[in-house]
């Protein structure tokens, strides 16, 4: 950001009060981040904390996020709050596909990040990032409304670093939606039928250096 700012020419003193120079990226990002409209996507307990963050005490409307749009076409941000079950997974992916770009996803709460305390349940998807790409994760069960604000600010920071020429929705080509899973003997996820994805998918192990050292020893 500062390197971009340093490329701006210096203004003569008589114009400094009336003219503001900014890089187009900054203006673009600022106007988008100050009017990020969330979609109603409350699933479970975290939805109550999300609704509480709209109540008079915390008031997410101060940051331009007042309008909660029920229709995905009009929303920018999907706050996945609550456990994602396999039954709900097709609808979630369908709604994500229907959202217009630019779109962001915040995974709010332990259940949305990894299945949470219900991870071992047979009807729970262990994390919404198995279905859609996630931008910010907020742990907590449920996270306080201020924790959600913190996540929204983290998302703002991430949005500030976006540059127009790199944005995915301005690239050439058609936008590929995510294939919607179906309900079969278990959740049928079409991403797994592609051989590359199926066999290459492994989450990175955190302590791989420790394990590698022990294996060498």
């Amino acid at each position, binding site marked *: 950001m500062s390197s971009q700012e340093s490329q701006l020419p210096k203004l003569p003193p008589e114009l400094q009060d009336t003219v503001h120079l900014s890089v187009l990226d900054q203006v673009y990002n600022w106007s988008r981040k100050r009017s990020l409209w969330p979609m109603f996507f409350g699933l479970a*307990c975290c*939805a109550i904390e999300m609704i509480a963050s709209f*109540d008079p005490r915390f008031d997410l409307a101060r940051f331009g996020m007042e309008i*909660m749009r029920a229709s995905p076409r009009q929303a920018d941000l999907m706050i996945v709050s609550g456990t994602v079950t396999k039954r709900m997974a097709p609808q979630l992916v369908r709604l994500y596909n229907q959202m217009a770009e630019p779109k962001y996803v915040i995974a709010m709460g332990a259940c949305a990040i990894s299945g949470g305390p219900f991870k*071992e349940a047979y*009807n729970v998807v262990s994390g919404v990032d198995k279905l859609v790409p996630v931008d910010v994760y907020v742990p907590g069960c449920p996270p306080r409304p201020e924790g959600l604000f913190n996540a929204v600010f983290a998302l703002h920071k991430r949005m500030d670093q976006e540059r127009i020429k790199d944005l995915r929705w301005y690239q050439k080509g058609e936008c590929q939606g995510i294939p919607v899973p179906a*309900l079969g003997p*278990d959740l049928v996820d079409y991403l797994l039928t592609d051989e590359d994805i*199926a066999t290459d998918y492994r989450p990175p192990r955190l302590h791989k250096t420790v394990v590698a050292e022990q294996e060498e020893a």
Partner: protein
Amino acid sequence: MADERQLSELTADALGALEEQFPGVAQPAERIGLVIEPHQLVDVATFLRDELDFAYLSCVTALDYPEATDNFPARYEAAYNLYRSEGGPLVLHVHADRDDPVIPSLIEIWPSAGVQEREAWDLMGIRFDGHPDLRRILLWEGFEGHPLRKDWHEPYYEEDQKPFRSRFPDGEPVLDEEDTTFGRNLRYPHDWVEDGVLEIPEGWESEAESAVYKPLELVAAAVKEELGTEQVVLNIGPQHPSTHGVLRMVACLDGETVLGLEPVLGYLHRSHEKIGERNLWLGNMPFTDRLDYITSMYNNFGYAVAVEKLMDVDVPERAEYIRVIMGELTRLMNHLVSVGFLCNDLGIYFTAMLYALEEREFVIDLFEMASGSRMMCNYFRFGGVAHDLPDAFMPMARELVFERFPRRIDELETYLLDNEVFQGRTKRIGVLPPEAAVAYGCTGPLLRGSGVPYDVRRAEPYSVYDEFDWDVVVGNNGDVFDRVLVRFGEMRESLRILRQALDRLPEGPIQGGRVRPNTRVPEGEAYGRVEHPKGELGFYLVSDGGTNPFRYHIRTASFVNLGVLGELCRGNKIADVVAILGSIDITLGEVDR
């Protein structure tokens, strides 16, 4: 508790009459209640309902005994808890074969068995002969297996019971994702997987959606012949602006009139019952917070009351008073939120809801002070409560209960109840006759709004509710407006109880006896129920003397109350469906568990 002996005397009369009518039919069951043979079940049930007035079937539990117990062979079992206006429970057990479990359905006698038998079929695999619509309710058609069976293991299965040995003393954090084929919580039939790649068979199609629409197609077909007008099948949800959660309703409409409506559940089914069998007894307490996530204190209360029926531990008086204070604050908060969300659904976009949420913030401030968390309180323990009240609690509670809340409830009443638009949208909508309410197993403000004065705090008193002076609030007509009135009345009664409790709070210990985390609960079977703000919350617990439950079944008010939604909505306009749903007051965490 105070009236247990009196209750059992009333039930003993009933047992005597039963023995006279059907000699030798009822045998004593393994632990509590009677065993009835399947082929005599319907006759016995009809006699119990008609002659002995057991009009209320509270809970249908499916049990799985893979090994023979002391008196009976390995079996599947269904347990029925019956109540009447004074007395109960009468627990009936019916055994079914291990290979092909079939039990006659009791839906003709008690319609409240409708949704509960569907759940028993879905999760345990017991078929109910005579049920008109035995489909899966929480999972989808096409799901493989019946998950609550003891031999069914989930894809991330590690061990039968917690604590897992992989955590200590040699704990290496291996995430569940790393141990399964696809890195996900998925398991497919053998012929679907080849070399770690999913191979879907040719021509396979998901049957989940078509199964959902089947009952409505019959409704639509019946009407089509008359006039040739278009019937529309409309999906409401699971993502919709109403704040109740992920509930889906499929409605068959003729213009704007609802011909038939089916709630489709299971979008939040998180298998509390299967996880409950793996957890320690105390470890289930934070999970009960997540059942009805708005009223976590009362879920804890219900679980504590149920387990204390199995354990032999006395709750000190201060702890009982604190429990009642927390419980009634929860009831107040729940009714405020319920009225607020109903107004939100009716179209008073956000104003009434925000007024209600502002008051809720004060109540959860109190909870945060006492227990440590705004919503997931985890405050109750077996034999008392976890922590004592901090010093700052009483002044704030007194100011709220004596000053702020009465003012705010008066203001909300002025705001809503005289409003002609509100009255026009809620009066004479969704009328539930009292006999139907009892037959469908409805409880809570839904039942009392129809004129039936049944409250578990009076019918089967628990804790110290019988030491306070309070009334049961009853409505007249059974429409949406009356249920709102009942909720306002119950808010005032809660304030009345709170005023008495705060004034009379005794000193003393807050926990009776030392209960360790891996405590063993004595062998037994019990059904503990409480008057949850939404209705009757019951826990059917079976213990085999170990550190983990053998069977953990939760009977929630919202799940059974939803069984009546289709009946109530028939004939009303589509705009009234939202009002009726709001007045039933459900929370999806409780419905789907």
